[in-house]
């Protein structure tokens, strides 16, 4: 498949929708359980703390802008160790693809069609993802350019219609929570918001046609995504209150159900479900595309599109076994996932930077040369 190139505006849209992702649905509940009414503070701090992480990523890919994350890892850590680490990364993205399919099936079954087995939704959704992966990143980016204005429009309407129901006393007292649960919650938030951005390194900057504006787009996209999440979390607490937010699995859906203008604009929450399906689709596609591309680069397969259909079967299988119930899902996302992705999003880039410094690896045209003290005798 020929090289995919996307513009920085398309990339910014991808980043915005990716970071909003599944968080728009599940984050308000678990964060509100941990820090009660200060959940919006967690979102703001988490968004601001994503900036240093992005700077770390930029420093890593600066010297090798034509390689993806998997190729950079194999180049810096060498063939053997690099393959082990990248296989770990591909396993992470594969498991997350399955988990996201579980999530979409679970959400649609819980809220929209309770009598359908969730695997049906997973298969249908997966067919779209497989077709998108087959068509390539450019087609996907162009599709998002069409979907994003619709997303923005519905989101703004949503916010406008829900603001009449705000009760400020729901968010008081402010800053009641102590530092320790706040730190735990920020870790949890960043695990779902900022750390997964490492998956975008599979296409950044190797598929971006203008590196500097792509860099700017990365930062801007993350900030806008964080802003959207902060607004949703704040609205959940302001309108529903702490107890209702923490008790429900999908508080934003409850928010959408609350919208009732006059006697005619009711039951429009399914239109809201559309925007969540867009963001979940972006996230699921990026994870799946990273898996396919990563596996192709590990095994040095020229056309990674052959692997799409078998991997699609595996993700559907994974989506049925990955979480037996909601409690297991929230326990995993709260406790284990930030650590698991943190290893690949924080520890691995730092390690790669240090090792690259030590081995004096420059851009691909210069090749690599070890330090002089090892060679001189």
């Amino acid at each position, binding site marked *: 498949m020929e090289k995919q190139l996307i513009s920085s505006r398309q990339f910014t849209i991808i980043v915005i929708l990716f970071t909003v992702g599944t968080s728009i649905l599940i984050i308000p509940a678990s964060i509100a359980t941990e820090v009660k009414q200060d959940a919006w503070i967690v979102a703001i701090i988490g968004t601001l703390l994503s900036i240093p992480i992005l700077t770390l990523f930029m420093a890593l890919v600066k010297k090798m802008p034509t390689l993806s994350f998997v190729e950079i890892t194999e180049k810096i850590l060498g063939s053997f160790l690099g393959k082990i680490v990248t296989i770990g990364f591909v396993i992470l993205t594969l498991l997350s693809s399955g988990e996201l399919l579980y999530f979409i099936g679970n959400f649609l079954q819980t809220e929209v069609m309770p009598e359908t087995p969730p695997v049906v939704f997973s298969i249908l959704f997966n067919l779209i993802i497989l077709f998108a992966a087959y068509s390539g990143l450019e087609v996907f980016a162009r599709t998002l350019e069409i979907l994003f204005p619709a997303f923005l429009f519905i989101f703004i309407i949503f916010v406008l219609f829900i603001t009449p129901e705000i009760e400020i006393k729901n968010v008081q007292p402010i800053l009641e929570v*102590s530092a*320790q649960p706040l730190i735990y919650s920020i870790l949890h938030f960043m695990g779902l918001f900022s750390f997964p951005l490492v998956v975008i390194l599979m296409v950044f900057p190797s598929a971006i046609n203008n590196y500097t504006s792509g860099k700017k787009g990365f930062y801007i996209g993350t900030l806008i995504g964080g802003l959207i999440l902060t607004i949703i979390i704040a609205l959940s607490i302001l309108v529903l209150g702490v107890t209702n937010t923490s008790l429900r699995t999908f508080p934003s859906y409850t928010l959408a159900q609350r919208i009732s203008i006059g006697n005619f604009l009711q039951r429009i929450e399914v239109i809201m479900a559309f925007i969540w399906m867009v963001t979940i689709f972006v996230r699921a596609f990026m994870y799946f595309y990273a898996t396919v591309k990563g596996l192709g680069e590990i*095994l040095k397969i020229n056309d990674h599109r052959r692997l799409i*259909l*078998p991997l699609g079967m*595996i993700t559907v299988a994974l989506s049925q076994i990955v979480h037996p119930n909601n409690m297991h899902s929230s326990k995993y996302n709260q*406790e284990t996932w930030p*650590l*698991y992705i943190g290893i690949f999003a924080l520890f691995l880039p730092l390690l790669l930077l240090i090792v690259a410094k030590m081995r004096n690896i420059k851009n691909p045209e210069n090749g690599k040369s070890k330090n002089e003290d090892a060679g001189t005798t």
Partner: protein
Amino acid sequence: MAMVLVILIITACIIFFELPSLKKGDTKTIWTFSLLLTIGVVLNIAISLKAIQFSPLDIIMYIFHPVSDFLKTTLLKK
């Protein structure tokens, strides 16, 4: 049993769909494709017959549970 047949039919469709492109490919691609497809089919059949109930994420949770328990006790219990 019906699900197993459906899965096998879908597998046959996948192979039928990919066969021309695979004939042009190299051996590594064919091996990877077949291996992944076999894993997918076996997993799906086992799940539809309710033979597998455990989640691979349980392994991940087990690996990380010392650290996650430590974080939970120190940070959430105040």
